[in-house]
Structure formats: C-alpha cells, structure tokens
C-alpha cells in the first residue's frame, strides 16, 4: 500500500514537472517576436537604409545609387512595399537634382505599386512628393491640393506619416500666398508634433516660422526661430539646412545692419553650399557678400570666394560625401 502511495506521489511530482515544462515552452512559443526577414529582403532594407543615410547628409547622387540597388533587390524578392519606398525615394533625389520628368515617372510607378501594397504609410508620402513636384514646376495650387490630400491621408492612416513635412509645406505655400494666419496655424501644429519629429523636419518648421516672422517684420522672433532651426539642423547633421539657416541669418543681420555678423554667417553658408556643389546658391550668397562688402567693407575682399563660383564638373563629388 505504501509502495503504491509512493508511486502515486512520484507520478504526481513527474506530472507537475511535465506540466511546468509544457507551460514554459508554450509561453516561449506564444511570445513570438518578429521573425527575422529573409537575407535578400534584409539586404534590400540595408541598401535602402544606407541610401537614406547619404540622403540625409545631402549626398543625393550617392543616395540615388543605393536607392536603385534597393529597388532591384526589392524586385528580386517581390517586396512591393520596398519597391514603393525605393521609387518614392528615387523621385525625391531626382527632384533634388532638378530632374522633374524622372521624378514624375518614379512617383507614378510608386503610386501604381502602392495600389497593390495598400500601405497607409507610403501613400501619404507619395502624395506629399507629388505636391513637392507640382510646387517645383510652379503649380502652387496643385501642390497645395496634393499636400492637403497627403495631410488627410496621414491623419486617416493613423501613422502620421510625413505629417510634419506636409504641414511645413502647406505653411510655406500659404505664407508665400500671403495667407499668414493659415500658415501660422499649420506651422504651430507642426511644432506641436515635435515628439513625432521626422528626419529633422522640426528644423524646417522653425525656419518657416522665422520666414513668417520676417514677413510680419518681427526680426527678433525670426532670429530666435532661425537660431533654433540652426541648432536642430546641426543636431540632425543636415548640411543643406545649416547653410540655409546661416544664409537666412546673414540676410536678417544685413537688414539689421549687423554687417560683421552677416559677413561671418554668409561666409560659412557659401562654403557649405560650395561643398555641396550647389552653384546657384553659391552665386546667390556671393551677391549677398558683395552687397555686404559694399555697405561695410566686410569682407575685405571677395577673392577667396571667386574660386567657389566655378561650376563643378560631371565627375565632381562633394567632400561631404566621401
């Protein structure tokens, strides 16, 4: 009898252990983390991420190479969302280089593919970029329409994809059309979303607010926003943004007749533009420096800047991108 009781106790003990083991294994299996993507898909994503890194540094040509590779890699694994992303990014770099026809082809393809992918994240960004393309070719009404659609899609999708960007763009186009209160509403809303800051767009929000303040003849607010924009762009390592902030600060200080400060800011701006190979901007800042020198004798000579006016050749690569 005692023997049987012993067997029963051992049986219960063993059953308890098996039960525990079963619970542990089940719990382990239940907490299923995201499965690692297949190697080819991972490669496509790696290429896209690499391209994004270069784009943020202002190296559009190099970014373009990676985005093309990412597109091919996504095609190989039939990753439609990856293809949409790649086309969208290729459109952005094409626009940044002034190739608007090419950008429109990429955006069209991205839009078609997104019909298959049904991505609530990519859709608003395609619309936003269509708005940017319309703006770039001077169709401001169309641009506003696209950005409003992008804004509605981003809000509706719940992902707030590019929300700050669309708000900034709307604020900019409204300011340019003299609709200052509307522009301010948009920009203030963008500023309130700084928690969901996307790729340093908040720097642009402050930049737009500074321009708005300048339009309203409020230099102190403009300077404050420009200083904040400069700090944010520096944090985001956005060289084009930094150059634009410095250029605008230079213009502001010229208006305030703070010639020495303006000379210093414009000097830094022209060098960054030259490093980025942006010859039109170099020429614009050169003219500002010339005006500064005529008004105040600062800088003493424009000779150091004349060398920067030489347009870069086809094979030229920005030192910031090496």
């Amino acid at each position, binding site marked *: 009898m005692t023997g049987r009781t012993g067997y029963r106790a051992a049986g219960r003990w063993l059953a308890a252990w098996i039960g525990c083991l079963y619970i542990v294994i089940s719990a382990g299996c239940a907490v299923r983390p995201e499965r690692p993507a297949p190697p080819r898909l991972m490669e496509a994503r790696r290429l896209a991420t690499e391209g994004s890194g270069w784009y943020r540094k202002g190296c559009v040509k190099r970014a373009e190479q990676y985005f093309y590779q990412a597109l091919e890699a996504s095609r190989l694994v039939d990753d439609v969302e990856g293809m949409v992303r790649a086309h969208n990014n290729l459109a952005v770099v094409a626009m940044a280089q002034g190739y608007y026809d090419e950008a429109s082809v990429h955006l069209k393809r991205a839009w078609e593919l997104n019909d298959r992918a049904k991505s609530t994240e990519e859709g608003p960004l395609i619309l936003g*970029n269509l708005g940017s393309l319309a703006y*770039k070719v001077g169709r401001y009404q169309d641009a506003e329409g696209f950005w409003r659609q992008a804004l509605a899609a981003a809000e509706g999708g719940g992902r707030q994809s590019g929300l700050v960007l669309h708000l900034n763009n709307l604020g900019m186009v409204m300011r340019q059309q003299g609709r200052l209160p509307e522009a301010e509403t948009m920009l203030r809303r963008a500023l309130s979303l700084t928690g969901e800051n996307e790729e340093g767009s908040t720097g*642009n929000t402050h930049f737009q607010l500074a321009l708005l303040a300048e339009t309203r003849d409020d230099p102190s607010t403009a300077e404050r926003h420009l200083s904040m924009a400069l700090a944010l762009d520096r944090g985001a390592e956005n060289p084009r943004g930094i150059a634009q902030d410095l250029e605008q600060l230079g213009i502001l200080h010229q208006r305030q007749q703070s010639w020495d400060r303006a000379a210093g800011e414009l000097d830094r701006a022209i060098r960054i533009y030259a490093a980025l190979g942006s010859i039109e901007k170099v020429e614009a800042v050169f003219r500002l420096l010339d005006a500064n020198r005529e008004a105040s004798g600062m800088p003493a000579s424009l000779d150091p800047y004349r060398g920067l006016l030489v347009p870069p050749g086809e094979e030229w690569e920005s030192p910031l991108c090496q």
Partner: protein
Amino acid sequence: MRLEYSTTEKMVGAFILLTLFTLLFTVAMVGRGKNWFRKHVSYYITFKEGYNLSDGSRVKLLGTDVGQVTEVTLTEDNRVRIGVRILANYASRIRTDSLAIVESPTFIGSEYIAVTPGSKASPALAPGGEIPSKEKKSLGEYLEEYELEKMVKRVSEILDDLSRITAQLKDRGGPLMGTLQNVQRLTGTVEQGRGSLGRILRDDELYLKIMAELDAVSKILASVQETAAQSVEIGGNVKELSERLAKASEPAPAMAVQVQEIVSRMVRVTLLLERTMKDVPAISQQAREGMREVNRILDSIQKNFLIRSNLPAQPKPATHGLELRGE
C-alpha cells in the same frame, strides 16, 4: 492480485516508455551514422613518430574512409604504435604488401592514414596484424630529394656532353681528324720542295735574296722598337687602369657565388610555391564550406525562439519626402 493503475500513472508510464523509445531511436540513428553497429577488424601500424594522429583520426583506402584510429601508444623501442579498426567489408583488401602512410590533405585539416591496397597475389593480413608502413616525408626531405634529383640531372647532362665531344673527335670528317690530315698534307708538300715554303728551302739563290730582305726588315724593326719605348709610358697608364679594373672585379667571383645561391634559393621557393598553389583551391573550397557551415549555424541560432527575441531589431528603412524651404 491484479494491479490497478490510475490515469496519471498510465500517462507517466507512457511518457517514460516514449522517452526510452526516443532515446533508443536516437542512439540507433547516431550509431548507424557512426558505424557503431558495423563489424570492424583491428590492425596495427608502427611509425617513427605520431604525426599528430589521435583517437578517431581517419583511415582511408584509395581516398575513401574505411576506418579510424583507435589507439596511439609508444613502444619500448621509442616508436609509435597505432591501433586502427577497419570496416570488415574492406579488411580483405588489407594484404601483407599493403602500405600505410600518414598524409595531410592540405595545410588545413587533420592528418589521416592512407592505406594502399595490396596486390591480389599477396595473402590477406590477419586480424590484429601489422600493416607495413612508410614514414611521412618532411618538407626538408622533399627539398633534399629535389636537390639530389637536380644533381643527378646535372651529372647526366655532363655525361651527355662528354659523349657528344668524344663522338665528334672520333668522326673522320670532324674538326680534330680533319686538322691532323691537313698537317700531314702540308708537311708532305714541304718535304717534296713544292709550295712556297718547299721552294725556299730547296733554292739557294732565293735564300740569299731573302736574307738581304731580312736585313732591311731588321732596320725597320729597330725604329719600331724606338717607337715602342715611347709607348711604354702610355702602356704604364693602361697597366694602371687594368690594375684598377682587376681590383674592382676582385669581388666579382664572390658576387657570382652569391647570385648563384640566391638563384638556387629562388628555385626552392618557387618549388614550394608551386606545391602550395596546388593546395590553394582545396583550402579556399574548405574555407567556403566552413563559411557556409557558419552561416547555417547562425541561421539556426537566429531561428531559436529563446535567442530570437534578444537579437537587435533591423532598422526600418525610411521613405523620404522632399523638404522644401521656399527657395
């Protein structure tokens, strides 16, 4: 008395039986893969040294795995006795004239014993018998062998040259016999008073005329001697130059010896390189296989649910929107 079991007890019993069955099945499968259940025949091989062989080292017959090393022991006469077991299927091919040698597949990889099958005429080696062995050659031995071969080749070349020269000398139309025949013909002509030299020796009038001519020649020679005395000074300078040249060329033989040594070293290095290069494809193949294996292991690790959750998340690629600033 009939025993009664509760459901729990039955479940536990079934579980234990299942576990035992799984264990036995695993052992059976592993054992099958490892040839645990196949019959083997043991043999012994003795080498001067162990060549890094250890228990489990492979034994190959015509490049095929047929067994493994079971023990490595040192004998009293300071030799290494290797115990091997060979699959019984192949034991009949191990004969008294079979030869065991230690080989390394490449620079990467473990040594193994390669056994050559014996001839059919020889009797099969009895189980537990000693397979005749041949020592593995070291690199130095290979080199020495190469030097020896080179020397033999040189001697053979010299002998060839000698036989060629001897054949030429023996040839009637050859240079030596031809010259001797010419000399014989000339001396015969002179003796018979034919030809210029023969006529001079036989004609007295001609002899006196020649003597007169020789006086004139003596005078010319005297003036030539005078000129030569003046040339001595120049000759001295030339001599000095020659001495300098000789001094400068003194180390030349030593240099030539050094150059010869360097060339011979280069030849050795080239030989080594050639041998190594033969192994390169195998090494790269092994490295590739190794990398594939590592990748497979990494993949399986990544799939493990306990590890998977701790892997760093891959950053999600961004989609960009063109940032406009109103320029």
